[in-house]
């Protein structure tokens, strides 16, 4: 039956029988598993709102440093005969800021502009590139912190000590060292990606890898130390000989002035100052007020988006990797391996894990990365159980038995055919895990066990009821609302995904 005829008949038919379906009339075209799941997720308004909100915080996670900063975009020095112009905002951006800004601009473009490959594939490549950049950045950051703290391997330190610093540029050899090591890391990681087959031919990956390598290298060799405070530009401005142009939110997140503490939303610092001290930076209102140290709440909240996104993603990745590994070990080996490991899972399951997390966070060093690791290490159990159950279920099924009878090793059956099957519920669960991780971060920060070295919504929330017992309503409302919306978004997406892929519910839907 030719397709044109079938379409015309579909339009005229009020109903179809099984024969029509077999003839291909009235049959919905198959979209593939994830395509079908995605189209069902998109149909849910709640999930779409969730995606929208996460896009918003992702946007701020990328661009917060250029939206909320105490550094002026343009700084004009009129002390001399000629006006000297500088751009402090851009000079103070760190490598991570730069990477994220490049990623935030190029990423959406790369996905949205049709370039031949399918959108899903382009999205996959973008994620791969982001992952690569993250790996490079972490390695470089780690290396640099070890050099500056003197805990790097001996030969690196020796190299650094032995190179005599030229007088005109005392930082020269150090910068050279960082340059060289960054270059080698970027090169190594880029080359590694050459072997990951995200496109068919290796040579099609070359320009992509080179581009990503170059961009990440450029960012790595830039500055590292985040500059969350800012210079007292306003004092210079008061002299009248300097002039700055500021971003939308002209406060750095940790830039505080106790003179302006606990200002309600909308209050402007200018009204609090004597006439002669009015300067440009401060004639803008604190949109969401200030905290007890006089730091702008909005700026802190914008900068905290990055922590919120990363804590969810990193800790959940850790949890999923551990969970899938342990689950696969249990399901693959069975026997005593399963018995021992499942005992471990049971121990974790039969204890309030949140309590364990609180103890761990309180006892171990207060550090963002440690916190991510802790959350990840204590939430892998569900993933492990899913994978184990899937392996056990599939092991006994006829097609696996027959595949083994034909002579395929169990290994290939398990990992080629089963792991992709079993991973689906894990990915749905990951969405809820992200939500839980953000929730846990808020709890830990509220209890005063959080890192507190960078702005975080939970930390802001905990300041709402300070030691003085005074209740600062804007500190309770806005950061709390942000946490709530983020958790809600991930939960809604997770629910939609689960409903989309759960075969039981699908059966009940008919």
């Amino acid at each position, binding site marked *: 039956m030719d397709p044109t005829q079938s379409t015309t008949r579909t339009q005229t038919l009020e109903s179809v029988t099984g024969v029509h379906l077999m003839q291909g009339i009235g049959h919905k075209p198959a979209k593939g598993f994830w395509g079908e799941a995605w189209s069902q997720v998109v149909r849910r308004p709640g999930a779409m709102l969730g995606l929208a909100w996460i896009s918003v915080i992702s946007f701020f996670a990328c661009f917060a440093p250029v939206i909320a900063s105490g550094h002026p975009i343009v700084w004009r020095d009129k002390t001399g005969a000629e006006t000297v112009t500088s751009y402090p905002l851009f000079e103070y951006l760190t490598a991570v800021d730069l990477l994220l800004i490049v990623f935030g601009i190029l990423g959406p473009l790369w996905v949205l502009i049709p370039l031949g490959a399918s959108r899903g594939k382009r999205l996959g490549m973008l994620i791969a590139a982001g992952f690569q950049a993250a790996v490079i950045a972490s390695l470089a950051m780690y290396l640099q912190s070890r050099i500056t703290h003197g805990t790097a391997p001996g030969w690196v330190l020796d190299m650094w000590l032995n190179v005599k610093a030229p007088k005109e540029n005392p930082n020269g050899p150090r910068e050279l060292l960082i340059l060289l090591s960054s270059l080698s890391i970027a090169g190594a990681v880029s080359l590694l990606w050459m072997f990951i087959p995200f496109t068919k031919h290796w040579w099609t990956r070359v320009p992509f890898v080179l581009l990503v390598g170059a961009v990440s290298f450029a960012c790595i060799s830039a500055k590292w130390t985040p500059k969350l405070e800012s210079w007292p530009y306003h004092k210079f401005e008061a002299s009248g000989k300097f002039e700055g142009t500021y971003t939308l939110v002209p406060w750095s997140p940790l830039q505080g002035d106790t003179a302006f503490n606990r200002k309600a939303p909308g209050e402007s610092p200018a009204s609090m100052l004597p006439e002669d001290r009015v300067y440009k930076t401060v004639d803008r209102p604190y949109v969401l007020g200030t905290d007890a140290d006089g730091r702008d709440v909005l700026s802190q909240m914008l900068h905290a988006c990055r922590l919120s996104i990363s804590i969810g993603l990193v800790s959940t990745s850790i949890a999923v990797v551990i969970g899938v590994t342990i689950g696969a070990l249990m399901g693959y080996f069975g026997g005593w391996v399963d018995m021992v490991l499942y005992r471990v899972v049971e121990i974790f399951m039969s204890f*309030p894990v949140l309590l364990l997390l609180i103890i761990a966070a309180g006892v171990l060093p207060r550090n963002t990365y440690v916190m991510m690791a802790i959350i990840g290490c204590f939430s892998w159990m569900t993933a492990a159980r899913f994978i184990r159950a899937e392996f056990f279920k599939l092991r006994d099924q006829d097609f696996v038995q027959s595949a083994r009878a034909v002579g395929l090793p169990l290994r290939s059956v398990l990992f080629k055919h089963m792991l992709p099957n079993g991973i689906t519920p894990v990915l749905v669960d990951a969405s809820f895990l992200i939500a839980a991780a953000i929730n846990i971060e808020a*709890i830990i920060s509220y209890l005063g066990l959080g890192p507190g070295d960078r702005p975080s919504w939970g930390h802001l929330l905990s300041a709402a009821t300070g030691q003085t017992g005074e209740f600062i309503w804007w500190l309770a409302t806005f950061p709390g609302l942000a946490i709530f919306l983020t958790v809600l978004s991930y*939960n809604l997406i997770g629910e939609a995904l689960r409903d989309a892929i759960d075969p039981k*519910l699908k059966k009940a839907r008919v």
Partner: protein
Amino acid sequence: MGTYLLRRLFLLIPTVIGMTFLIFMLIASSKGGIGAAIAFSSGAGQAKGESAALQRARLEDRYGLDSPVVVQYGRWIGRVSPVKFGTRDQVSPAGERFREPRSMKDPPLWEWFVDALPEPDAPKELPGKDAEEQVKRDAYRQASNDFAAARVDHVRARTEFELAAGTLLRETGHRDAVESDGTVILGLAKRIEPDKSHALWADVEQKAKVMLDTYKATISNKATLDASFATKPFPESGWGLIPGVLWLDAPDLGYSYSRSTPVINEIAKALPYTLMLNLAAFPIIYLIAVPSGILSATHRGSWIDVTSGSLFVALWSIPVVWAGVLAIGFLANDKYLGMFPVSGLHDNDAANYLMLPSWGENGFERGYLLDTLWHLCLPVACIVYGGFAILSKQTRAAMLENFTMDYVRTAKAKGVDGGSIVMRHVFRNSLLPIITMFVTVFPATLAGSVVIERIFSIPGMGSMIIDAIFLRDTEILLSNSLIIGIVNVVALLLADILYAMADPRITYK
């Protein structure tokens, strides 16, 4: 059924051991280690007169903090376990507990000076087993004091010797056998032949002599003490099963150095609060979530389904700390609504209240019961709201799944009416996953109540744990985790029994 329960109870043991071991390791790996609270409360940080190293050495010696972490953990488990091995403890009528003294550690680097360690002198003359109790007790206390004094001398001598030996080793080119704080790494130093020609050797040798002398005095005193302990000056504690090998006793949860009380007293005060919160919360969660789950399933796609579904997901997503802060800030704070109390579970003078509400001279008086309920409102509300979504969703899914089952069709074909099908057939079968959900909901609620207690300043287990985290009070942390673990496992055991009662297919044989 009985054997099944017994087996489940035995499963409790590895669970609790695993959990407490993890926490023990976490604390051990933290700054300050296991003894942080002891060191803090004894003021070792601000040591005066004696050097800090000596102070630390004395604490380590007294509390066994210098043993490997696993050994220390084993000691803790031995204390907490109701089944104990070895010689029975003795308890004075005043409640003071006496254990058999721990064995002494060998003095460091004795191999450098003597071929064999000195033997203890024979124990001093002691009153016999049949002597008067008071005489035996006095003798025991005397021996105990002598031993303590000798041990202090020995620890001082040992510390001085170690520092001297460390200096010598460093001077003679054995840097790697010395820690950065000047103490000797014994395993390495033992193998090194000391440079006896060095100028410092005489000093080292002299200090070693003092150390060995004090060692001999200490072990001699210990022998006396051991002999005195064997005369049983105090009544033995617990029930002996095999004399000298196996006995039963009430668990000893230890002593909290940050609060200067036995941990068991603190827990006895705190546990009722936590249990009360959870027992108040649980019926509410089930009574609201399960019926709404049933309604959502029977009215699938209707406004009831959609509204309750979205409302519960929204509630589920509210961070508990935000809910708590908002509740305290807006509902309890006098500046805003001020309808509820801000903290605690009773008014300050609640102890004087009557039990029931009454109409007295000062108008309406709440009475103790109503006062407690009034205080419970906000904390319980903050605990329960998060549980609705997961339970109601599960109920709904289970109901929907069971609606498609063949036996529902059979029941319909029999002519059973709709209401009976929903309740008698579908809901009855959906009970199983609902009971299973308890396993997920209970630990989460229990942990949630820990946070809630902190927010509302309720002096329960949670507040205690968080205080203990800040003070690094190992004993409280471990004991609380143990108790919470046991409460949790017992709850899960109850759920298991319920499940077995609900599902006839399960037989425990």
